[in-house]
């Protein structure tokens, strides 16, 4: 490792984690079977809203193989599942936080709510026993519609009679009103951001075991953030000492937000595992996932955009109602506020913005962060209204965007964020080339010859990632810090294990982080292992969400590496009888500046662990460093997307023909992995725009409760994607210059698709359509306007 070699950072290195997934030897939660394994089954509510008059568990208790049956009454002294973010209403009152019980207490508030836990020798026995539990329900009217929830006259919770959790606002209302008074043109738009079901392909699962030896617990669980899971579960719900619980999130098959939260099932399992004295495993059937995984989006909004005569944005006014579902999930309250309204400036220098958000309870599954979380809602609203304004003013939609771009950085928006850097012209100009917009008229003509309507749609998104500066988050209501932790453990032979508080469930951290470490220490990639997802191994962690892993978790690793290098320099200085300040570290060698006197990294590592010739009076032996990194600002990935669709006017079928993207993620460690993240995000965005829509009927029954009714994008729904990572404007405030890439695709793509659909339908005078733009919905829109 003496010669300088090409850096690993910036290279599309094949993933270190792939072998185990490709060969089937990965270990997911359901793959784990513990000695003495027993199985749990949850009896769930068939009603959206009902009072529980009585529960008779006696027949189930006597059923073959049953070890225990528990209901809410058994969980005395157990707290509710907490919400991690306190939002205050405009009048200063705190949000309503009704108890979110682990097992239903007195009432059920959504279909699928867990009413009883049956533990048995086998899953079949647990299910058979659960069927014998007699629950006497008094069925109550249900509230399911977001827009009318506050006026429904039925209360989901007694403590929130009008179903309002909070009414929150941001921005300068008077300034906005004054700007509207001056406007030459006002564009208005009402829209729904459709409710989505995350559907990671691995269903949620948990396996809990208690050890009588030291009264401790181990929980294997499908989690994106095991430390947070442990903290919330022990400190807020079960009252078990935090250090007596080890939470392991092994290989996790996708999360997209849905595995951030502390759920009732694993909490109940941990509680029951001590009582049963056996490990208890529960794995969701997909039908349970549909009903109980936290859903995403579900906004109803009205927006008004004021423009001057030249098309400059003067002000934006937004009113949004956001559905929280029946209970507040872990991060539910901050999604339609802190992660939504703060993004309403987008890439534009709009001087005045005001947004009011009313969050409501309904008799539906809890709603929380799903890939993008608030930012797709903001981007969809903004990019739809911008494109509508362009159409109304007969200004080219690209030109209208350009006219309003922010070009000076740092830029403080009127909704609380300060963008540190960006170059929106660069990504827009590049995507216009990638999309061959110049060739669009010819393609439109070719489509017309086939009887198809072609449309083109644009979207320029921004997101706030790298969550988050703890002090700012705290001021905004966060009940947790949002730093990240890392430990770099150098072994005596110079090999390195890094423990990170970030969690990888598809993101490829084991490779990306290893590239950073290997480059910084001048080691081969195979000498670096990344460990994550185990509170018993990793010192602490806030986990993976909000595109934060590299920007925050990676930065923590860099901080720890800096400490390793600093200590290595001291050891080198001692060995070579030089001053610390004269030691340089490069390409895996500690060298006295301007000389050929040097020590390799492995030699220094060995010295640290065999400290025979070592400054023991001033320096500890060993080479192992921890670091916590708390970011000073959010990061602001941004980009431009162009979508082209063909619409069949006879059937309403929309086909995405071309999709192009230019993204600025700052510095990129592994382009292959980053592009993969964009591909996946775009698929979810196209899914939201054209296919996916969670539907409840007015009784609160889920109508899209399986993959046969909830349309997931399949390979032939997707076009070939033209993705390019922009050279980028590096983040100015973290050591890697990284901004985050996990959510961009899902944030930027829905408005591009819908704008394209509306462009295609413009000749038929269709000006509005809600997502998902299914064939049926498109056909109806065409028919409505044809009348």
């Amino acid at each position, binding site marked *: 490792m003496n010669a300088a070699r090409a850096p690993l950072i910036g290279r599309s290195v094949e993933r270190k984690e792939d072998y185990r997934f490709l060969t*089937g030897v990965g270990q997911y939660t359901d793959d784990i079977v513990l000695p003495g394994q027993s199985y749990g089954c949850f009896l769930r509510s068939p009603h959206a809203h009902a009072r529980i008059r009585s529960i008779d568990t006696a027949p189930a208790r006597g059923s073959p193989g049953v070890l225990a049956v528990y209901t809410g009454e058994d969980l005395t002294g157990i707290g509710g599942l907490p919400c991690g973010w306190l939002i205050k209403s405009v009048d200063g009152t705190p949000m309503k936080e009704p108890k979110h019980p682990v097992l239903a207490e007195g009432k059920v508030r959504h279909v699928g709510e867990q009413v009883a836990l049956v533990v048995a020798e086998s899953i079949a026995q647990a299910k058979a026993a659960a069927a014998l539990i007699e629950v006497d329900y008094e069925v109550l009217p249900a509230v399911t519609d977001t827009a009318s929830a506050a006026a429904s006259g039925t209360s989901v919770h007694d403590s929130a009679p009008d179903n309002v959790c909070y009414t929150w606002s941001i921005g300068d209302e008077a300034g906005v009103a004054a700007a509207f008074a001056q406007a030459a043109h006002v564009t208005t738009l009402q829209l729904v951001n459709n409710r989505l079901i995350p559907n990671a*392909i691995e269903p949620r699962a948990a396996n809990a075991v208690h050890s009588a030896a030291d009264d401790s617990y181990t929980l294997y669980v499908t989690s994106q953030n095991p430390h947070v899971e442990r903290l919330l579960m022990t400190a807020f719900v079960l009252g078990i000492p935090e250090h007596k619980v080890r939470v392991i999130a092994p290989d996790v098959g996708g999360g997209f937000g849905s595995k951030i939260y502390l759920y009732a099932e694993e909490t109940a399992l941990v509680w029951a595992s001590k009582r049963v004295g056996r490990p208890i495993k529960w794995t969701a059937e*997909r039908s349970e996932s549909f009903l109980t995984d936290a859903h995403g989006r579900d906004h109803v909004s009205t927006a008004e955009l004021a423009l001057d005569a030249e098309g400059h944005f003067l002000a934006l006014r937004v009113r949004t109602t956001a559905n929280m579902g029946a209970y507040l999930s872990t991060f539910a309250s901050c999604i339609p506020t802190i992660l939504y309204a703060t993004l309403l400036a987008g890439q534009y220098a709009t001087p005045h913005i005001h947004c009011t958000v009313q969050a409501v309870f309904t008799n539906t599954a809890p709603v929380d962060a799903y890939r993008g979380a608030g930012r797709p809602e903001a981007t969809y609203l903004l990019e739809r209204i911008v494109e509508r304004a362009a159409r109304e003013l007969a200004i080219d939609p690209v030109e209208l965007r350009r006219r309003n771009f922010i070009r000076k950085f740092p830029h403080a928006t009127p909704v609380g964020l300060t963008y540190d850097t960006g170059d929106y012209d660069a990504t827009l100009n590049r995507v216009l080339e990638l999309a061959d917009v110049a060739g669009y008229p010819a393609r439109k003509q070719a489509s017309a010859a086939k009887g198809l309507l072609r449309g083109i749609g644009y979207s320029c998104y921004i997101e706030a990632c790298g969550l988050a500066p703890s002090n700012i988050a705290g001021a905004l209501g966060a009940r947790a810090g949002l730093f990240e932790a890392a430990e770099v453990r150098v072994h005596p032979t110079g090999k390195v294990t890094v423990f990170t508080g970030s969690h990888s469930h598809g993101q490829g951290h084991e490779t990306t982080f290893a590239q950073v470490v290997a480059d910084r220490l001048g080691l081969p990639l195979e000498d670096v292992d990344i460990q994550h997802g185990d509170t018993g191994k990793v010192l602490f962690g806030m986990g993976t969400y909000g595109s934060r892993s590299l920007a925050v978790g990676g930065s923590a690793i860099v901080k720890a590496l800096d400490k390793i290098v600093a200590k290595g320099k001291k050891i080198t200085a001692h060995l070579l009888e030089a001053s610390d300040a004269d030691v340089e570290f490069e390409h895996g060698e500690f060298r006295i500046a301007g000389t050929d006197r040097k020590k390799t990294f492995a030699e220094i590592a060995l010295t640290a662990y065999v400290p025979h010739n070592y400054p023991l009076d001033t320096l500890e032996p060993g080479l192992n460093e921890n670091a916590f990194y708390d970011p000073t600002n959010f990061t602001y990935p941004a980009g431009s997307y162009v979508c082209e669709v063909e619409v069949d006017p006879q059937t309403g079928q929309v086909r995405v023909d071309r999709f192009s993207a230019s993204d600025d993620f700052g510095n990129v460690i592994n382009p292959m992995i980053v592009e993969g993240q964009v591909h996946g995000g775009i698929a979810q965005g196209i899914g939201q725009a054209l296919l996916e829509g969670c539907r409840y009927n007015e009784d609160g029954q889920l109508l899209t409760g399986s993959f046969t009714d909830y349309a997931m994008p399949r390979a032939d729904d997707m076009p070939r*994607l033209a993705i390019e990572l922009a050279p980028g404007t590096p983040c100015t405030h973290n050591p890697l210059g990284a901004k985050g890439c996990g959510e961009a695709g899902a944030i930027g793509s829905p408005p591009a698709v819908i704008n394209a659909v509306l462009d295609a339908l413009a000749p038929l005078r269709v000006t509005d359509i809600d997502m998902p733009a299914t064939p049926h919905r498109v056909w109806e829109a065409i028919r409505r306007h044809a009348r």
Partner: protein
Amino acid sequence: MAFLWFHHILEQCTGEDAPLPRKARAWVCRKKHTFSAGFTTGPTPWRPRALRLYNDLGAFTILGSRSHPMSVPIELIVNGKSVAVDVEADTLLSSFLREHLRLTGTHVGCDTASCGACTVHVGGRAVKSCNVLVAQLNGLEVTTIEGITPRDGSLHPMQAAFKACHGLQCGFCTAGMIMSAIDLLEHRPHGTEEEIRAGLEGNLCRCTGYHNIVKAVAMAAKTMGS
């Protein structure tokens, strides 16, 4: 056929929207009241309200099959090894592989035979192991992801192509996707991109947007063909 069309049925056949009373559910459970879904169809004992079951979670999540299934002696070959066991009549191949043989590379991602994560080869053709009974496979050959993996630490050309093209992220759908892709190429070795996409119709991936999976299959088509 693949699947029943619940919501169509629900809305088509239920005049009323009132939830099915619990007693009726229990009746349904005990009577094993069903509608025709096999070869025999007598006068269909169809009761529209019973279809409320589908949305009536208390019923459908907990209704299991009968709890004392008959044992069936079977012999099959799994990944080249003979397996002779007695299985319960209603044991799904996916459970058999995962729980009895501890071949956990085959994953289960849904309960409607929609996602394809559990895809394995039976007699050389891709099938969803969650949708086949072991009892149906007497004398047949089953190959799982473990069975196509070379023992020397190298990779099958399809696995190698997925790695080279970053055709996997979380890895959960990967085994099923690879088993489908191998079957696809064996029966259509020179597919166009469109044919590859259509050929992967039975497998859901939530991570990759399929872009790199399609690329990987196209690459494997070259390496496996050569």
